[in-house]
């Protein structure tokens, strides 16, 4: 079932462009997200990712390009019955009680009667707000607003849910709860589009990620594969001499000394087999080797490297060579 759904697009974006007066917010963005997939949209502030989400949600009109959700154009109202959306830092009508809020949104989806009432209770329990039915939204904390926002986004049992910075208002426990809930929803076949700059969310949940910066998509792929680079070894050695650093530098792509732990070196090489060369070099320099292990770089480091690389202008000489 899931394998079949994998091939069906949930979101198709082709040549999307959005220009605000003279500012190009989104420039020729194209990607496909499949049904049943959790798709992360990563990028720094101002990268254009929120504009893309707002276009998907129908809040912003694209300047050019085509967007189809669940195989339908954005204007299709029947398609929108199968979509859920939670905006970044949501603000709701504060005079409404939690239950009234969900009932209103349920009615907008065409739900009513016993079905709506039952579903309201279910989603409140799912987001950890059971017992808060009669509480006014004006008295809700930021985290509770985020939770009730998610409740309205999944109220209609959507096939596709668009989440903009889901955990921005939540404490660590709330973040974990939300991630668990999203995993549960994903296991039930819901397609999740997660716009975030929280790499932990993306890493924990997403099957594929698109990196966006300055309005353009830089890469699309599985998180680990996306950031794949040269192997890095963590080398614990003493003493760290200038000669050792010089000789390691000759065989490595990059050598970095840990600022807090001067005996720790991070050596980036072209191939895994060069671990032996590193060990030999340490002995040749008369230093003692206390540890040599592959260093797993955090997704954050890799993400920052990707963003930095996209910003860095290419030197003329390097480009010519």
């Amino acid at each position, binding site marked *: 079932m899931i394998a079949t759904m994998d091939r069906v697009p949930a979101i198709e974006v082709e040549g999307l462009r959005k220009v605000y007066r003279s500012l190009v917010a989104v420039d020729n963005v194209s990607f496909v997200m499949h049904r049943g997939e959790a798709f992360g949209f990563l990028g720094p502030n101002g990268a254009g990712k929120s504009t893309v989400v707002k276009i998907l*949600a129908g*809040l*912003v009109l694209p300047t050019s390009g085509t967007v189809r959700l669940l195989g339908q154009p954005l204007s299709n109202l029947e398609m929108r019955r199968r*979509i859920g959306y939670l905006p970044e830092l949501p603000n*709701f009508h504060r005079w409404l009680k939690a239950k009234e809020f969900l009932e209103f949104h349920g009615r907008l*989806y*065409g739900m009513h009667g016993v079905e709506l009432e039952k579903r309201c209770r279910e989603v409140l329990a799912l987001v950890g707000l059971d017992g808060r039915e009669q509480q006014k939204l004006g008295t809700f904390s930021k985290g509770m607003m985020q939770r009730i926002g998610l409740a309205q986004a999944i109220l209609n049992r959507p096939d596709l849910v668009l989440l903009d910075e889901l955990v921005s208002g939540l404490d660590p426990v709330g973040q974990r709860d939300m991630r668990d809930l999203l995993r549960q929803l994903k296991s039930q076949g819901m397609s999740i589009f997660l716009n975030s700059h929280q790499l932990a969310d993306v890493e924990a949940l997403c099957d594929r990620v698109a990196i966006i910066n300055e309005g353009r998509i830089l890469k699309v792929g599985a998180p680990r594969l996306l950031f794949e680079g040269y192997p890095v070894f963590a080398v614990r050695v003493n003493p760290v001499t200038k000669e050792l650093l010089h000789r390691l530098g000759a065989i490595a792509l990059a050598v970095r000394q840990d600022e807090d732990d001067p005996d720790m070196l991070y050596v980036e090489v072209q191939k895994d087999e060069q671990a032996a060369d590193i060990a030999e070099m340490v002995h040749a320099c008369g230093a003692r080797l206390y540890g040599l292990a592959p260093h797993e770089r955090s997704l954050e480091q890799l993400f920052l490297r990707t963003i930095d690389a996209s910003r860095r202008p290419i030197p003329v000489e390097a480009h010519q060579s």
Partner: protein
Amino acid sequence: MGLLLITRFTLLEAVRRRLFLAVMILSILIIVAFAMLLNLVINASLQGNNGQTSTQILLLSGGVVMTVLTLWMLYLLCSTLTIVFTANMISGEVEAGTFAVIVPKPLRRVEIVLGKWLGYAIIVCLYTALMFFAFLVVLYWQTGYWPPYAPYALGLLELAMLVLLAITTLCSSLVPTIVTGAIALMLFIGAPTASVVRFIVQVVNPAALQSIQNVVTVINLIIPTDALWHGASYYLLPPSADFAVLGLSAQSFDTPFTSSEQIAPALLIWAVLYCIVLPIFAALRFQRRDL
């Protein structure tokens, strides 16, 4: 369906807002205070009457004048409340971000705008009608005068409120709340200027009246509220046959704020179109707005 849901939501929101409660309480206080003051004025007038005029005639003629003056005040009150109450109807939601979860739902933006417009139209018309009849009942109770064409007067008064609502609907879908409020207030306050100028010219140089009339017409086309009030004030007067009996003259009601003439049918049609076209234009414009 979506339109009616938004209308129902707008009505619920209006009732829940503190502004509504404050307006209701103050409105009741105003009517009670008006009844007491009117009673004092009438008692003073009757005591001052040395028998030259019958009490009934005195009460009725006083009732006519008081009705026009009171309902002019009501017109100002309802107009101001309409502007204050509706200036943020679209822009307020956009600025607060509350539309971000409503617009993606399976309903057209046109339904959202027209649903809100309908909700506010019901509130504004209901409030105006309630206050209109509350004041007339007090006036009737104290003076015995009931305008024979009161429903027509109310109709024009309601139309004036819908004109203001049309302006706030359009502006609110285009510009921020503060700008909407400023535009609506400036238009509303600016409209009687034409009537004042027309009155001055009529007194000072009646020959130049035609040239000023063109300016007045243009202003009435831009903002027909003042013309509608003048039309309403005509329907608050007794039938022309009764003027002499009451010791009044129709000309005495030809002031910058009242009129002894009916509103021109063309202007009435224009005002109705104004109330229909502006909200539709607002809805179509909002359809293309980035949120």
